[in-house]
């Protein structure tokens, strides 16, 4: 075999291996999705959405957990997104390349990479221990701590894409800076910022670890935010690990609901951003 053939062969081999690696990665994605469909779909019924989590051995659904999850994620976004957007605004509009802004970016990355279980422990120490009991508030705050660094990052990136010419034009018309930012820059960057929030929402929808020590779980409808609240991830965790078959079935149904909601949220967020980008 001459040098030319050997080079061609090495090339073919390495590129085939890269295709194989891609195949393996995709295989696992489809294996997981297939598992969810096969184990979850048979137990996905109307009652899953209308009834509360049952004691073992009786009929029930996941209604209270679904509502609880919506409350917790909604609360997490409501607390986290404004702080994230404003901090992102500081980085892109005021801090820019100053040393303080560079430090803040790094600290934000530290928060972004902090293990979610550590965030759960922190909120436990901060809120649960001081209040004396688990609560929906604590759960929402824990999720907000995950939302903030994601939104800071995406907001800053998106605000930076807005050209300075636009800021200067508005300033030249006599608009004060806060008006330039809220009326011009935010408008231009709106789809990008929304995408960031949607991605953060997708991320926290499946988070389990930070809720274990904060929102805990609740067998029943919880009307008070000061009390432990049922939520899909923790219900799935408890039911899946339980020895009761009907609980495990509900866990699979919940896993199916949660995963496909998140996948759809992701795809919507991405295509949203893509069409906006393509148009400009």
């Amino acid at each position, binding site marked *: 075999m001459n040098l030319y053939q050997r080079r061609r062969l090495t*090339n073919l081999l*390495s590129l085939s291996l*890269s295709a194989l690696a891609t195949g393996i990665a995709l295989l696992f994605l489809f294996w997981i999705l297939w598992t969810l469909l096969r184990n979850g779909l048979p137990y996905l019924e109307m009652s899953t959405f209308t009834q509360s989590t049952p004691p073992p051995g009786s009929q029930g659904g996941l209604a209270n957990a679904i509502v609880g999850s919506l409350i917790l994620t909604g609360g997490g976004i409501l607390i986290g997104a404004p702080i994230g957007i404003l901090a992102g605004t500081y980085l892109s509009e005021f801090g820019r390349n100053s040393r303080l802004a560079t430090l*803040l970016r790094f600290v934000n990355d530290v928060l972004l990479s902090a293990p979610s*279980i550590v965030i759960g422990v922190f909120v436990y120490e901060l809120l649960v221990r001081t209040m004396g009991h688990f609560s929906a508030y604590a759960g929402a705050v824990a999720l907000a701590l995950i939302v903030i660094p994601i939104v800071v990052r995406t907001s800053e990136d998106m605000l930076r894409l807005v050209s300075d010419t636009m800021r200067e034009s508005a300033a030249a018309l006599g608009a004060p800076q806060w008006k330039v930012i809220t009326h011009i820059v935010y408008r231009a960057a709106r789809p990008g910022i929304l995408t960031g929030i949607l991605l953060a929402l997708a991320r926290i929808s499946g988070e389990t670890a930070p809720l274990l020590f904060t929102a805990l779980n609740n067998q029943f409808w919880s009307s008070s935010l000061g009390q432990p609240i049922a939520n899909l991830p923790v219900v799935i965790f408890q039911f899946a690990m339980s020895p009761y078959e009907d609980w495990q079935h509900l866990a699979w149904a919940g896993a199916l609901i949660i995963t496909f909601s998140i996948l759809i949220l992701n795809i919507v967020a991405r295509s949203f951003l893509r069409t906006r980008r393509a148009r*400009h």
Partner: protein
Amino acid sequence: MLIPGSPSDAARPGMTDSTATPAARIQRGAVRDRLFRNATVLSGATVFGLVLGILTALAVGASLALQKFGAGFLTSTEWNPVTEQFGAAAPIYGTLVTSVIAMLIGIPVSFGVALFITEVAPTWLKRPIGTAVELLAAVPSIIYGMWGLFVFAPWFAEHLQPWMQEHLGSLPWAGALFQGPPMGIGMFTAGLILAIMVVPFITAVMRDVFTVVPTELRESAYGLGATTWEVVRHVILPYTRVGVIGGVMLGLGRALGETMAVTFVIGNAQQISTSLFMPGNTISSTLANEFNEAVGDTYTSSLLGLGLILFMITFIVLAFARLMLGRIGGRV
């Protein structure tokens, strides 16, 4: 242009304010400017405060255990709630071993996927494959855990583990790593599932840094007759080396802190075993399993000490990753 409609359109509300004198308007604008700026500064300060708060809360909470056990907390393998003797060696060992397994498997696969997407796949295939790999990152970790425990572990125990024992278990030195009962769950399974979970993160960074290679460099190499692999090996990889390392570090940070998936499959035993097929524990899985049930100050404090160690490890790994990615320029 990024903005739909013209700037004047967008700016109109509030700008046609006829009741106030120009001087008053300017003054009011200045006041609101200050308010708005302060609000953004305050939000930035919140991020600082949160990270400091996490660090302080963990350090204060862990101080009792650290005072009681001293440096022995890091080296002792004893974890006994009854006698209140706690050492972090077993969970630290489990965390490091599962992450190393995840990296050993995850890095080559991520490299292959990034290579396939940037250099090999036809244009129409790039986007769907890229999206599909990104969706792997969107699947919640608890789903990986359920799938790992109920589907993957039994399959692994039946098909792959016996084969690995037979062929790898007889190796000198390394053989001991692959002996033990084929239970399906254990540290190796946890590492394997972590590998799948970090692939999308490492791939994303690798894709990004591969695209910053100047087209001139790439094309010059092709012009000299290099094959695709030679371009990757001798042009792209050397050019993007620090970025690739940064991406690997980001993935490592993920693997170290991952909780739910590991908690499902690692077996949750506070022990250090030679065999990778034996159950173990990681810092995060110990916290997930024991934090709510911990009674007594020493127990809770030791768990907080574990949290502090985990936070420090991920902090160091992240700092290193940022350093590397900062060197390749731009924000990845």
